[in-house]
């Protein structure tokens, strides 16, 4: 977090009254500057060289200044009633800091990309000056007493409207972000998003949103699915982003299955990718590929079930040692199983054992799925918008994810889920209270494996080929990281984690080489500073902060809420 030393009180008191006009002027300058040209060179950062035709970055700058104006007006002016609830001063400080950073980085980017400071047009400087003024004003705004926004309630319809608007913002934000092809633009966009999020946190809005979404869980789920469903329609038939999106979904599906094992049952599985692999190999070897080694070619739905069951059987085998092994040792056992799976797939090439998998070459040329006359490889047009191959897989995977979420949350909120929490808390005591510890652990492995197996069969067709090197330990670590990053035991967390871990590397090609390095660092830093993940399950948060009594008191109500 960026900390800027506070300005001495005397200065604030003396110049405080100037903060408001100063801020408005700054925001105005920022907007005016953004409408002018920023750069002489039309080739860099999209095109920022034409006045009154703002490019993506200029739109972001304008959005930030509009937000700043809203906050200023809430502090003093027509929106003060809103200002009574939200901590506008802190929010403005956060926003202004990030906006200034944004503008500074934009100028740096232009300088670097176009080769020299001379490439910045006056518009750029005007916007920068505006950002500086907003920043200065934000330092002079005095915080004031606010009511607790966390407990504010609006009429139901308007709360639902908020959710819908939020989801729409996510939809268009994502589509917008994916449309950015320039890495600088993408990074700057992420900066804006971060800035806005922090502004929301500072204003107390995010906490409030959290409460709103728990009050309207169903609406949230529906809206989220609607957004996910609508996403392909924003892509205008382009399949490039849909390819990434369907990769993200496969990854998310597997991560969600793993989350049952790790997040709910509390068992660390370091070989989980093997379950996805088992499904994929079933899908591949039972496909109509010329290299498929199994003669039986049932309809795909049967293949899916077979894949799920083969995986589940493996889950049963891998879960069996939990009868005697737990904790770190279990993690190592699962790691061992994962490696055995990969090596076995690698070896079953006809020379070292029967030919099942074609060894390191794998099973290539897996044909696209067909349901009746619907071929997943073809482009279909719906509502005038062409939906190509990856869109088709995307919709199928969306169905699968919906199913996985259903399984996950229903199990979590049942007798079985309670049993899992009890095992996580104190295994011996759970056993002594009559909880079937071994059975529940096995169940977690089997259900998790089954779901991954289903996903795997689809993955085989989507990827066209299946090879052992797709199922190395690192992939298991990635899945685990998605859970850790997003938040153990929560659906939203894992989805966010999966998106971050799969999307960022795809969009940020320039750091492709440093991807793994940063990934390793990220894991270490997460464990150090926020081990419960970005969207933490309340209970998991407590488990990671055993000694924080205050937190326990604070979240008590939330946990009770989840129960009922």
């Amino acid at each position: 977090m960026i900390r800027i030393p506070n300005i001495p009180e005397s200065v604030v008191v003396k110049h405080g009254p100037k903060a408001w006009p100063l801020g408005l002027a700054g925001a105005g300058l920022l907007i005016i500057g953004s409408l002018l040209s920023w750069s002489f060179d039309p080739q860099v950062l999209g095109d920022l060289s034409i006045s009154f035709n703002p490019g993506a970055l200029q739109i972001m700058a304008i959005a930030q200044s509009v937000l700043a104006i809203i906050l200023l007006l809430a502090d003093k002016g027509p929106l003060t009633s809103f200002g009574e609830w939200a901590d506008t001063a802190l929010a403005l400080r956060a926003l202004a800091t990030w906006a200034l950073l944004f503008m500074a980085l934009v100028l740096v980017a232009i300088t670097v990309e176009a080769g020299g400071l001379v490439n910045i047009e006056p518009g750029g400087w005007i916007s920068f000056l505006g950002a500086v003024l907003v920043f200065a004003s934000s330092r002079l705004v005095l915080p004031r007493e606010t009511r607790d926004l966390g407990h504010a309630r609006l009429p139901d319809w308007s709360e639902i409207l908020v959710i819908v608007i939020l989801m729409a913002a996510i939809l268009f934000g994502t589509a917008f972000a994916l449309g950015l092809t320039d890495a600088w633009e993408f990074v700057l966009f992420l900066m804006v998003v971060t800035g806005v999020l922090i502004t929301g946190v500072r204003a107390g809005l995010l906490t409030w949103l959290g409460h709103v979404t728990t009050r309207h869980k169903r609406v949230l789920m529906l809206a989220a699915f609607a957004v996910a469903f609508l996403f392909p329609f924003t892509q205008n038939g382009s399949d490039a982003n849909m390819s990434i999106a369907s990769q993200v979904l496969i990854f998310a599906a597997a991560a969600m299955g793993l989350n049952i094992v790790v997040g709910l049952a509390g068992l660390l599985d370091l070989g989980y990718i093997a379950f996805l692999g088992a499904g994929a190999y079933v899908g591949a070897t039972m496909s109509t590929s010329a290299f498929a080694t199994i003669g039986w070619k049932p309809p795909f739905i049967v293949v899916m079930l077979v894949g799920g069951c083969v995986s589940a059987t493996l889950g049963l085998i891998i879960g069996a040692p939990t009868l005697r092994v737990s904790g770190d040792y279990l993690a190592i056992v699962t790691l061992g199983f994962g490696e055995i799976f990969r090596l076995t797939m690698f070896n079953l090439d006809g020379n070292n054992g029967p030919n099942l998998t074609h060894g390191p070459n794998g099973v290539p040329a897996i044909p696209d799925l067909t349901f009746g006359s619907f071929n997943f490889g073809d482009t279909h047009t719906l509502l005038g918008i062409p939906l190509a191959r990856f869109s088709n897989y995307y919709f199928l995977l969306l169905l699968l994810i919906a199913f996985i979420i259903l399984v996950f949350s229903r199990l979590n909120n049942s007798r079985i889920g309670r049993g899992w929490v009890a095992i996580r808390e104190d295994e011996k005591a759970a056993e002594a209270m009559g909880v079937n510890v071994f059975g529940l652990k096995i169940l977690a492995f089997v259900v998790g494996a089954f779901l991954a197996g289903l996903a795997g069969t689809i993955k085989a067709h989507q990827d066209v080929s299946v090879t052992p090197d797709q199922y190395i330990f690192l992939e298991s670590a990635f899945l685990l990281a998605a859970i850790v990053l997003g938040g153990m035991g929560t659906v939203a967390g894992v989805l966010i984690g999966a998106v971050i871990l799969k999307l960022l590397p795809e969009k940020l090609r320039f750091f492709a080489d440093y991807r793994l390095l940063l990934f390793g660092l990220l894991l270490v830093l997460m464990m150090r500073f926020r081990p419960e993940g970005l969207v933490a399950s309340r209970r998991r948060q407590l488990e990671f902060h055993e000694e924080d009594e205050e937190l326990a008191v604070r979240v008590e109500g939330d946990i009770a809420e989840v129960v009922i």
Partner: protein
Amino acid sequence: MGIFDQQNLDTFVQQLVNGLTLGSLYALIAVGYTVVYGILQLINFAHGEIFMIGAFGALSTSLVLFRGQTALWVLPFMIIGAIIASVGTAVLMERFAYRPLRHAPRLAPLITAIGISVFLQELVRLNYNHVPFTSWNPFNLPDAKSRIPFPQIDVVTGPAFQIGGVTIQRSAIFTIGALLMCAALLWYFINRTKTGRGMQAVSQDADTARLMGINVDRIIVVAFAHGAVLAGIAGVAQGLQNNNIDFRMGFLAGLKAFTAAVLGGIGNIQGAVVGGLVLGVAEGMATQYIPGQFGGSPWKDVWAFVLLILVLVFRPQGLLGAKAVDRA
């Protein structure tokens, strides 16, 4: 043709020697897992990387200071270089990644360890031959993205000895010798010095050890450092044996060494040595004697993992560990 004819016996002894060599390497690394686990109950999953970095430390010393000379006197300097690199990494890792997690739930350090492991591998892969974010390579070091030849030392890597039908590589003698010496020194340290006794106390109850006036933080650093010294030496041994090293070498070796540590009873130093040797010999024998399609070297890692799982499931206290007595 009897079972004990000369050729069979030679093959057997040959595999035994190979197994002991491999086992010594495992044992050297395994001690690091065991010492740290004994004190912190932490599986330092990144220990394999310490071993890898040791090998790179030795390589760098040789290339930078001695321009790849092959005289025997270079070897001690290479070992020192390896130890500096591995101990430095281990101590930094303890200080900045593990120490803040001392009271965190067990999942946190394990995931941290995975993170460190990936981070260190990538650090070496990307930045070995140049200063980060530049292409400046003052010592003209080789690119670490693929295998790098390891400098050969005349006396230690020269022609093999031939005793009857059995071939003994000189590097094997180096490895086994290194293990024997390290094990003896370590045994002396743990059982005969004050710091060693402090280590034992911390491993049983850290808070109470504090109340005895033992500086627990220091003891933990010492434990990490000890493991790293042995891993660094193992890195040199591995380089001399295989003639090359690469940034991935820590993963499998680390996993095998961990198996060895568990096999011997994790937390128990003699156990790590015995476990390493047993695992090495078992692997050698499996390569030779498991018949049919599932034998031979393609499957040897599979059998090692099967052994790991069997040990964890059926004898988690290891070969030398006694079952913990749970008193009321």
